[in-house]
Every structure is written in structure tokens, then in C-alpha cells.
């Protein structure tokens, strides 16, 4: 009993520094944000849900939230699918160590390029008089003002996918390497094809990894604001006007009350999404365990 208690205390001692850091830098500031969402920007007078009502009735917020959602809806599946394909491709050439290392490195290069350089490149490529329109012109195709038209959304999606694919590929590879080779061998002996192996073994066994990858990608996707802001400033083309643009501009106008309310809403939305993913994962895990025992190969252990 004493030993158990001591172990708990030791455990707490290990957890406490980390928890303190999280509390000081995240939890407590968030509590302050939560408090500020119910008070006026100057004077700290309690104003009930007025800030929330203001945020919901704000057209700019609705536009930014819509764009952010649209961005997530397009980017996340695209990123996960493309990076998974790339990871599977890489796994296929894993035996050729040299080629594997080169390809893996190539995927990671965009991640190492500083944002400022990326932005400069974007400007050169996607400007009204940039490289892309120059190339299109050679083929007789009319160019576009990429960053000042609806095409800006596509550019942003492309930039996000280009920059983050390498990182997610590495996560996928880590997940793939955790699947025991013996399972594939056993399945193949039982007559399973590649698709069967992928659907019946790879995907189910990678569910925890998938959950983490989705959450990380979701949180990473908010960082795309940096590139968007550096390319197009505080007021970009309306299709790439994201929530962070709005927060940034509200901060300039000292609208801390609105920022606080919107931040709480965003936090609830992200937390809700993550919980939903978790639930889906847990549900599908249960279903998977159940189906595995009655499956085509008679289940596995």
C-alpha cells in the first residue's frame, strides 16, 4: 500500500512540471480569455453574452469561419489521402534504401523552407505577371490574377498540401512500420490480396495513428494563416480570409472582447471535432474487434 502511494507521488512529481507549464502557458491564459469573453474590452464591465451575440451577427466572422471550415474540409482529406499514398509508395521502395532516403528527404524539403522564402516564391509564381501566367501564356492559355481572384483558395490549398505532405508522410510511415510484417505474411498465406491486406490489416491496425495524424493535421492547418497573411496581407481575397485574419484585425482594433468570444467558440468547435473523431475511432474500433473475430480469416489474436 505504502509502495503504491510512493509510486503515485513519484508519478505526480513527473507530471507536475509539465502540467504547470501547460497550465501557465495555455490553461490559465485560456481561463482569462474565457473571462474576457464576458466583459467589455476596456473597463472589464460584465456584459453577459453580448460579445457572443456580436460575434455571431458579425458578417466578417461568418465569412472567416465559413472559409476556415471550407479550407479544413478540402485540405484535410486531400492531405491525408495524398500523404498516405506517398507513404505507401515509399514503403514499397523501402528495400532500396538509397532511393527510400532520397524520396523521404525530398518530401521533407518543403517543411524546412522558411515561410518567408515560401511566400517570396508564391509571389513570384502566382503574381499577375508571375511565372505561372508566363508559362500559361506560352501555351496560349489566358492567365489569372491568382491571388486576387477565387483561385486564391486553390493556391492556398496547394501551398498547404505542398508544405505539409512530407510531415504527414513521416507520420504515416511511423504508423505503417508499427504493423507487424507477420500479419501480412499470414494473410497472404490465407490468400489475401494487396487490397485485402490494406483494408483488413493496415487500416484497422493504424486506427490510433490515423486519429493522431488527423488531429495533428487539423491543428497544423490553422498555421496556414502565416503564409496567407504574408502573401496577401490583412485583407486578402475573400476566399482566403480566415479566422486568424479576423483575430489579427480585431486585435488591431482593440476588440479583445470579440476576440475572446470567438476564441472560446473556436476552442469549443475544435475540441468538439476532436471528441467526435475520438468517438468515431472508438466506435469503429469496437466494431472492428467484433468483426475481426467473425471475419473472413476467422479472426486474429
Amino acid at each position, binding site marked *: 500500500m505504502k509502495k503504491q502511494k510512493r509510486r503515485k507521488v513519484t508519478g505526480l512529481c513527473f507530471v507536475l512540471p509539465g502540467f504547470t507549464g501547460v497550465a501557465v502557458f495555455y490553461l490559465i491564459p485560456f481561463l*482569462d480569455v474565457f473571462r474576457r469573453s464576458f466583459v467589455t474590452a476596456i473597463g472589464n464591465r460584465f456584459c453577459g453574452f453580448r460579445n457572443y451575440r456580436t460575434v455571431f451577427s458579425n458578417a466578417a466572422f461568418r*465569412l472567416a469561419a465559413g472559409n476556415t471550415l471550407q479550407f479544413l474540409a478540402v485540405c484535410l482529406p486531400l492531405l491525408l489521402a495524398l500523404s498516405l499514398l506517398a507513404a505507401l509508395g515509399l514503403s514499397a521502395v523501402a528495400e532500396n534504401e538509397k532511393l527510400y532516403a532520397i524520396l523521404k528527404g525530398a518530401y521533407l524539403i518543403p517543411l524546412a523552407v522558411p515561410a518567408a522564402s515560401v511566400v517570396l516564391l508564391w509571389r513570384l509564381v502566382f503574381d*499577375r505577371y508571375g511565372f505561372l501566367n508566363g508559362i500559361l501564356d506560352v501555351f496560349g492559355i489566358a492567365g489569372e490574377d491568382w491571388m486576387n481572384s477565387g483561385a486564391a483558395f486553390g493556391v492556398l490549398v496547394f501551398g498547404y498540401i505542398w508544405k505539409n505532405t512530407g510531415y504527414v508522410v513521416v507520420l504515416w510511415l511511423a504508423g505503417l512500420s508499427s504493423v507487424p510484417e507477420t500479419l501480412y505474411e499470414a494473410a497472404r498465406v490465407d490468400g489475401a490480396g494487396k487490397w485485402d491486406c490494406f483494408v483488413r490489416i493496415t487500416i484497422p491496425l493504424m486506427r490510433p495513428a490515423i486519429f493522431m495524424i488527423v488531429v495533428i493535421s487539423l491543428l497544423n492547418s490553422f498555421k496556414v494563416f502565416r503564409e496567407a497573411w504574408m502573401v496577401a496581407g490583412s485583407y486578402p481575397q475573400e476566399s482566403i480570409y480566415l479566422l486568424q485574419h479576423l483575430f489579427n484585425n480585431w*486585435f488591431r482594433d482593440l476588440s479583445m472582447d470579440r476576440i475572446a468570444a470567438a476564441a472560446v467558440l473556436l476552442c469549443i468547435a475544435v475540441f468538439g471535432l476532436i471528441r467526435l473523431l475520438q468517438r468515431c475511432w472508438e466506435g469503429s474500433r469496437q466494431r472492428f474487434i467484433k468483426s475481426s473475430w467473425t471475419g473472413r480469416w476467422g479472426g486474429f489474436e
Partner: protein
Amino acid sequence: MRLHSEKKKRRGCAFLAVLLSVCALAGCGKTTGDTTGEDSSQAGNEGAASFAPTGSGAKGRFVESDVSFPEEVTQIRCIGTRADGGVTVLADGTDAEKTWLFTADNAGGDWTAQEVELSLADSWVSGAAAAPDGSVWLSGSFADTDAARVKKINPDGSVEEKIPGMPEVKERDANNVITQMGIDTAGRIFVLDLNGDVLKMNPETGECAERIECGGEYVHYFGIAGEKLIMISESGIHVSDTATGTALPEDVVLSELIAADSSLKSSDTEGVFPLVFTAGMEPGSIIHADRSGIYCHQDNATVNEQLVSGDLNSIGSLNLVQIAMAGEEDFLIFGKDATGSKVLRFCYDKDVSALPETELTIYALEDSALLRQAVGIYQKENSGVFVTIKIGMTEKDGVTAEDAVAALNTEIMAGNAPDVIILDGLPADSYMEKGLLADISGIVAEVEQTDGLFTNVKNAYEKDGAIYGMPVRFFPVVVFGMEDAVRAGETVTGYADYIERAAAENPEKQVVYDLPARGVLWTLYRADSAKWIKGDGTLYEERLTEYLTAAKKIYDTGMDKSERRFYTRFDNVLYGTSGAGASYVMDGEVLSCYGTMVDLVGLEILLAAAEKTGGDYGILGGEQTKSFVPHLQVGISNASDVQEAAEAFLKILLGKECGSIDQNGFPVNRAGWAAVCEEKIKMYGSESTISISSTDENGQERGYMMNDLSQEETDKLAVLLESLTVPSLTDAVIEEVIIAQGEAYLKDEISLQDAVAAIRQKISIYLAE
């Protein structure tokens, strides 16, 4: 049992979390601790002795006072310390055409005036220095001869003339002249010439043959402290012995000073210096002053002691010319500002607290000479208040406006809002809406009662009887040309049509003073933007379209699209473009011009052009928009702990004395306006006309005659100013969006429809926020 333990654990965790929350939230509260004003824009000299915090019990401080001279004195020429410890001041009066040599034992007020047999009324004095024997040496060209001369003014008022023997100017076809003079404690005279060489002058013959070596470098300026000659060149400081001319060991303190602030290396303005020097009472000690204060260091010392802080007095707003010791402890500073030349006395008072009890913080996004002068005026009247000016964007740090505003907002949210906020470039409407700004209508009413105000400006800022921010200055955008041009200029579109028509009729001629694309857009924006926003906060698209079309028409008439023909810079919005343009109209190079009129000098040039060409001027958009450009909009923080001090400063800013300075726009203060006009009306004395010659942006010499302004002319301008009822849009975001898209349109990079669509889209998001 286990359940109980779980509960305990949960409670423990919850308690820990609450404890941490409370501790951290306590840190989010408003800080009420003392601040030392270290982030003051005036602070410099890191090695300076630090001050005690505000409100500490330490006593003793140098207190500033003006040295007053008889009313006839309008210009100070030189100050210096005599060998017997007394002080010499050379001054003259333009009106009386008299020059006086003032002497005093300690500059405490008992001045003896000696009239000098020399009038400096039509002279150009390039250098002046006072000798230890009480004489004063002047260099320059004087009314009695065109050639460069040196005059020695003896203590008895008699004048001796010397012909300076100067070496040839290197690599240029020009006559060498003296640009600065200095005299050491032994009476040795040193001069700086156009070659950037410091030369020793023979006091008997005026011969300047002996060159003081400065590592072969061009000397920007020099100072003398005792028997040390301190020369400032591009590479830094070089110190030489005045007796032998040999180089002395490096002065670490001064070298570090220059290394830390390269702006101290040279001055853009003739006759004023970033650093001034004199000898201290202790042998070998050097006293030096710059805008951050007065400092002293000993020979071979590494520590610089700050004697007087520029934050506590008006040194920070002065362009320094000379410094001199007055008695054993006091200092005299001779400097210039927009009001003219002045001598300040710094006298040590052991009974006042080392730092004032009250600290007043003033925030401005950009530095302003006018603001600093107002601070100087305020500090003279309120020596018990420590004023800190915080500048959001300085030339040194390269901070963008957006970053500066974000930093200010962080300070405000942390409870450290500045007491007085200059709202130019800041989201003023948002600050008012959030309740950050206090109602200043009471102070405005008080000033109005005492001095009178331009009520049209005041009314434009009054909302439901309250005023939360108000400009101290304002100026119009004017159009100049023949009658038809002025009439067409009553609307911006009318003026653009006129220019287009005139260009078609005169294909070989430049029709309008050519501004770069941003210049055209900025100027017309100021004249036209006041009525672009609808009552519901959306944009009048058709008015925006008209504005862009008008700008395009005017821009397209420019003969040279390389933007180098006339106007090469548009970096300073306070540059009076109408006056610059009028000189081209005067020379027949263009038919008309438009631009801002920011002072009465601008009016004088327009009137000179009118006299020569028969033209006239009027307000651009005077019929349709009737807008003025506000400048130095000021507000007081609601959260200020020193409301009284902030209000007193606001009164100074809006007051007559500050309003009497003719720069950065016209004062809203009527008494200030009257004083500015009165000054200009008698500006040129008995001659009433003056010949002006200046060099334009392309280096071309331009000359014209300017007359004294008449009362009718200033009255006419006053009527025009009174007719302006709305401020032009000052929202930095809207302006940047419109001008950025407008520039692309003017340069044919996008179509009008695309420009308007982009502006509409961006601004609608902004307005929706």
C-alpha cells in the same frame, strides 16, 4: 476507501489548478508600479547614470529656464564662456537692424548690452564662436561686401574685418568658405571648410593654413572642449590637442556614443549639430549635449554621467547649436526650433526632487517636431512632471504601423495605456467606441473661450456634445492656376476633366505639376474621401469610381511616366506640394498645380505665383466635399492616472503658444492663427519683399520674389479654412487598400472595374469587422 482517495486526489488537483489560476490571473491585472521611462524615445546614452524611480525621495536636479533678452532681439548668433567665468551672447534684431553683445557674470539675468557696429540684417553668417576674451568671431558674407569675410566683434562693440585665407576647394569649382567656427580656452580659432578639413586660423591675418589631421577623413562637424578639438567624421570621433594639433588617445565614451547612434555623425540642417561640446569645471572633463540630455565625463573615463535628462526639459525638441558653462554649475544651451533661436539655462536646484512625482506618457505612431516642441513648452511650465514620449515607429527599428498598433494595444490591455494618445494612424474610431478615450469637450471649450478655435474643425469632431479626439492642426488641399482651373477645381472630377482638356489642347506642354501615382492618389484622396462612406458604414462605389477615374485622367497627362520629371519623393505627407507646384507654374512649365498647403510659406509661394501669372488658388473639391486634412489628432486615455497633467498638456497642444508655430498645418487655435499671420505680415521688415532662391527636386535652381502677406490675404485664407466642414478619411486601412489598388490601376496593371471590385471586397470585409 478507494473512492474516498480518488475524491481526495480530484480535490487536490482542482485546488492546485485554482491556485495556479488565481496566481496567474493576479499577474494579468493592471500594474501600478513605477516606471522609469526607459522606453522613452528621447532616452539614449546607455552608459548614462540612471535616475531614481519616479516619486523616490532623492533630491537635486537641473531646472530649465529661458534666458530672456530685450524684445527687439529676434535672433541669437552665438554664446560662449569668458576666461573670467562670465558669459557672452551675440544677438541681433531683424526689425531694428541692430546687433548686440550681451555679457553677464553668470547668466543669471543681469545682462549688460553693448551695441555692435555691425548690422547682420542682410548677412549670411556661416559660423560664429565666442572667445575667452569676450570677443565674438563671425564668418560669412556681410551686407557691406559679397565676398566671404571674418568679422571680429570686440567687447567694446567695435568690429575688425579679416579676409580668410582659405585653401582651394577640392574637385569642385567653388569658392571655399567657412562652415563652422570654434575657439578653445586659449583663444585659438579653428574653422571647418567645404573640403571637410578643420583648419587653424591666424587671428591676426585670418589665414587658415594649418590643417588639423583627422585620418584623412571628411569632417562633418567639430566641437571644442577646453584644449581638445573633437572632430566627427564618418568613421567616428577623432580628438586632437588644440595646442599642438596632434591626435590624442581615443575617447571611449564619445566613440561608443557615436557607434551606438549613427545619426549623431552629421546634421542635415546648416548651423545646428547633433552633439555640442564644452569644457567642464574639472580639468580635462568634457561636457557634451545632445537631444537626450547633457552629459559629463572625465579624461580617459569609460562612464558617462548624465547631468540633465532630455526627458525632463525642452532639449529634446531643440536643434542644438552651442553649449557653454555659466558659473561653476550651470549650463547655457543655444538651440533653434520652429519658433526661432533661444538660449536655455540649466541651473542646479538641490531642493527639488531628482525626478518629478508625476509621469505623463504620450504616445504617437510617428515622431513629430511639433509634438516635441509642445512637450518642451509644457515642461517649462510644469517642471514637476516627467514626460515620456513613446514613438511607435522610428527610423531605427523598422517597425511597421500594424506591429506598432499591436504593441500599443498589448500595452493598453495590460493596463499601461499612455495618458495622451496622438491618434494619427491609429484606429481612433475603435478606441472611441471601446471607451478608451475620455471626453475632452471641457478642455476644448476652455481653450475656445480663451483663444477661440476654428469652430468648423471642432464641430466636425463633436458627437452628441462630446469630443473624444481632436486635431491640433489641419490643412487643405488647394488647386492653383488661372481662373478656369480654379473654378474647375471646385470638384475633383471637374478638375480632372479640365486637366484632360487642357492636355488635349496643349499636346506639347506639361499641363499639371506631375506627381507619382501614389502622390496623385494620396492628394486627391485627401480632397475627396470625406464623403465616401454612407451612413450605414458601406462605401459609395460610384464616388470611388469617379475618384479613380479622375486620378487616372490627371496621372495620364504627365509627360514622363518614369516619375522622375518633377517630383521624385512623396515620403512626407506634410510636404506642401501646392507650393512646390506653384513654382513650376510661375516659371511657365506647367499650367496648373494642386496639392496640400501646410503653412503660410505655402500661401506666400502661391501668392508670388499669382502675382506673376495672374492666377489664383482655391480649395480642391471646395464646392462638393469641403474637406480638411486633420493632423496631430489628440485624445486622452480614460484610464490615465494623471488626468490633470494630461489635460494640461492638451491645453498646451491646443493653445496659442503651440499654435503660433507655422509648420505641419494651420492651428485650430484662432489666437495661434492670428499670431502666425501677424508674424508673416511683418516678416520681411521694411523691405516687405524678399528674393527667394531654392533648389528643386531635380537640383534645378529656382528663384522668385515673395512679398509680405497682407491682412486681406490671410483673411481670405481664413475664410476658406472656415468653409471646410469635414475631415478627410483618416482610416489607415481604407487608405492603404484604395491607394494600393488605385496605383495598380493608374499604372495600367488592372482595369478600373477590377480595382473597384478589389477595393469593394476588401473594404466590405473591413467594415464588416
